[in-house]
């Protein structure tokens, strides 16, 4: 069997005068500069998208993006240039620009690593290979019909399917030579329900690094049901309370809490620059001892998983918080080198036209010992939030928010009325100190996360068990 490098080479360069040898030579030619690091990243992403609205599959698109990015680093200084052609002249021009800030130095020889032939975390087959267009359309129609049958209040249904296949290859002056073939599929259902003059939207999605055949083996009807339930429940939602109170977060997607409150603050770049509220706090207790949080890029088929990151570093499972104690940062090569640490497989970039940064992969809290029902029963007055629209953090102050899209009042240990969406606010290094009960039901989100940082989006996954936090600010409209 050919190596992954050969397979990606033959795919990327089939109509081009580039080759892996030419890339290696270009890297070697950069050895004449006095730099600490240089790399060339080549990428092609092919995406297909189908959308149903009003019962018709009338929007479909095909998208192709490809190009190469070249980076040259000396100390804290980075030169970066890119081109949208797999072509030798374009490569050389980008190389000249990226090294325009580099000083001449002693020529260094580069010896490239032999890539190891480990097994892949995901299928290498094209995500939608051999699937009839008619089958895709039939799937969207079926979900549309399901959603409409579930409740007559459903007035509008939008179903979408997207599938992307990425080929990437990276070579670096430290001898790295790596390639990867990455699938990504995503299915989404959004509904609008109307009753007695009120309207609500509900939305549910699922996906990951797997192909069509795996997708259709999953329980897709439940996706439509989740979207419909969310909209219909919210039709009866009452005003949310305002103030600081006990909050129970559901398992799975509410792990967006960890992503905002903990994850971003532990990314290496912010800590190198001293701009994170977590900077210099390794070894400190930042959470209750019930909390262990990891970022693990090695999970089979998950949305945030990668065989190697975008700098060619194999991903790994990184412990961020262990029994409440802050353990480590997530690093790319640049920040790891400047901090005297090792890269952790978290160097990611949105595309060839963006610089890599330390980013999360799949970020999750390990399960504890409490039964979810027991956790809810323990709350006198608070809220239960099983679904969120997303979150945001200011890593410098540590202040973060995440916005519930489905939530319920808890009164005397029982779920009572659904409440209107409310933003929950807290402070990163403080919030998990108030984590008082951790459920035994840890679970990853269904594969819907998109993380934004400095204008770059990358797919991620989050997860957690049902979790009780004794003190969070709930941003409803009912004060007192």
């Amino acid at each position, binding site marked *: 069997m050919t190596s992954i490098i050969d397979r990606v080479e033959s795919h990327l360069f089939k109509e081009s005068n580039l080759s892996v040898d030419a890339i290696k030579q270009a890297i070697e030619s950069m050895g004449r500069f006095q730099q600490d690091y240089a790399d060339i990243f080549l990428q092609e992403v092919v995406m297909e998208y189908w959308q149903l*609205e009003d019962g*018709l599959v*009338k929007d*479909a*698109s*095909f998208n*192709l*993006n*490809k*190009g190469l990015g070249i980076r040259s680093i000396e100390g804290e200084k*980075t*030169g*970066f*240039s*890119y*081109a949208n052609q797999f072509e030798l002249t*374009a490569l050389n*021009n*980008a190389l*000249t*620009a*990226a090294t325009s*800030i580099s000083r001449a130095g002693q020529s260094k020889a580069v010896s490239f690593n032999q890539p190891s032939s480990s097994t892949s975390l995901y299928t290498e087959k094209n995500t939608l290979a051999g699937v009839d267009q*008619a089958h895709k359309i039939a799937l969207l129609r079926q979900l549309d019909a399901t959603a409409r049958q579930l409740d007559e209040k459903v007035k*509008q249904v*939008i179903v979408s399917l997207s599938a992307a296949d990425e080929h990437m290859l990276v070579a670096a002056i430290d001898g790295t030579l790596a390639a990867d073939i990455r699938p990504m599929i995503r299915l989404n259902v959004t509904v*609008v329900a109307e009753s007695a003059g*009120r*309207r*609500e*939207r509900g939305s549910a999605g699922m996906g990951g690094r797997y192909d069509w055949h795996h997708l259709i083996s999953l329980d897709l009807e439940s996706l439509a049901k989740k979207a419909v339930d969310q909209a219909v429940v*919210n039709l009866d939602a009452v005003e*949310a309370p*305002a*103030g*600081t109170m006990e909050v129970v977060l559901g398992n799975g997607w509410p792990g967006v809490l960890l992503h905002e409150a903990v994850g971003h603050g532990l990314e290496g770049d912010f800590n190198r*620059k001293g701009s994170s*509220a977590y900077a210099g706090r390794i070894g400190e207790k930042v959470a209750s001892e019930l909390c262990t949080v990891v970022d693990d890029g090695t999970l089979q088929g998950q949305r945030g998983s990668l065989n190697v990151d975008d700098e060619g570093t194999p991903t790994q499972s990184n412990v961020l918080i262990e029994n409440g104690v802050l353990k480590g940062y997530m690093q790319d090569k640049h920040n790891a080198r400047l901090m005297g640490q090792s890269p952790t497989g978290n160097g990611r970039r949105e595309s060839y*036209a963006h*610089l890599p940064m330390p980013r999360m992969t799949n970020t999750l809290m390990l399960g504890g010992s409490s039964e979810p029902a027991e956790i809810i029963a323990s709350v006198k007055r608070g809220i239960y939030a099983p679904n969120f629209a997303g979150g*945001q953090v200011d890593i*410098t*102050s540590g*202040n*973060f*928010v*995440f*916005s519930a899209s489905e939530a319920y009042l808890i009164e005397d240990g029982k779920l009572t009325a659904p409440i*209107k*969406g*409310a*933003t929950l*606010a*807290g*402070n990163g290094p403080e919030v998990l100190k108030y984590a008082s009960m951790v459920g035994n039901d840890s679970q990853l989100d269904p594969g819907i996360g998109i993380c934004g940082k400095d204008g770059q989006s990358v797919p991620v996954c989050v997860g957690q068990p049902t979790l009780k936090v004794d003190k969070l600010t*709930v*941003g*409803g*409209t009912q*004060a007192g």
Partner: protein
Amino acid sequence: MTQRDNEQLTLVQIAEQQKQTAQTMQHIAETLIDRAKGAGADDIEVWSYNTIGNSVEVRNNDLETLEFNQDSHLGINVYFEQRKGTVSINDLTESAALQGLEAACNIAKFTEPDPYAGLVEANRMASEFKDLSLDHPFALTIDDMVAAAKEAEASALNSQHIKQSEGANFYSHRSVSCYANSHDFCGFNQTTRYSLSNVLIGQTEKGMIRDGYYTLGREYGDLLAPEAVGTQAADRIQAKLKLGKCSSGKFPVVFNPEVARGLWSHLLGALKGGALYQRSSFMLDKLGHSILPKDITIMEDPFILKGLGSSNYDSDGVATAKRTIVDQGKLDGYFLSGYSARRLGMETTGNAGGIHNILIESPQQSLDAMLKQLGTGLLVTEVMGQGVNIVTGNYSRGASGFWFENGQIQHYVQEITIAGNLEDMFQSIIAVGSDVDGRSSILTGSVAIDGMTIAA
């Protein structure tokens, strides 16, 4: 295209190079329209852009990042008997474009007929192309950009209460874009954009705080001086150093201009055709109704010279027009594309691709006068999170800002939330400030709203 792309070019040289790019775009559009017609398509539209520029980041008086940006895009919609196929690629070569067309035609075999699909009528295409003064190439070198960024940072770090700089960033970009369709419409836009920003970190007893300032414009000479950018950023940090608390409850809330334009964008978003025909808007069936206090009028003006939202035509090729959106509190118009207009049984308003410049007109008063009038409340300077539901108008955001009493700023407050319902909030606007911020296509001053819920 020439292959000198990646030398250190100024926008003057980039503009010269993009003359050739514009010709290539026109040639590709004509070729694709021709081929699509030959392949039996009823209609086709082609849009493309090419953006080239440089971006530098300086931190602690050292160049940290130098980026050469060069992005291209080509999009194609083909229509066969109301079936649509869409393709987009990041490549402006003819061979890639032809492959793209083939893929688009192939997709259109499988999509289902949509009675509302297709181009807008030929007589609605723009025919007058005013000079909107959007293109100002200037021979600014990378060294000039680095020097300006360093100057901004140095002036900020002069203030003793700054812990560190998070970086000063300068970028200069020029774009050329083309939209053409099978009505023989072909339009071009050339635009430049310059920006300088500085982000700082300050230290309080309770931890670090971050803030910054930026200047932005179509013409280099319109930017604020680097020194002023640094000073403004430092002043913002200084204002936040006195941290305090506020209590939960219902209070008047003033949104500063940067946050206020976000607030207006929720209203404008709810007036877009897509949200309306999907019945996903809190502004359904409100045409002719009072949605704002009657001393507020909202205008859309696509023809503001150097405007960030200025354009002679929209992304359907339709001529844009200056018009009233809200007339003395009454909703007078939506933002419709050709498609959403057909869905709603209305006429396009020239808003395919988005909303142009927006002017908020009202009897304006100074921010000081607004705070005095309100007495006690919160001046919001930042909001966080996704807690805006455009379907219901439900609004709940993380916030930080300044607590004021007797019209005087008392201290900075953070880690709080503000909540309300957008429909009520817009009805409860007490005043719009004269402190209009020009760094946006939504031109608004501060907005004061009565009776929002604060949770602390």
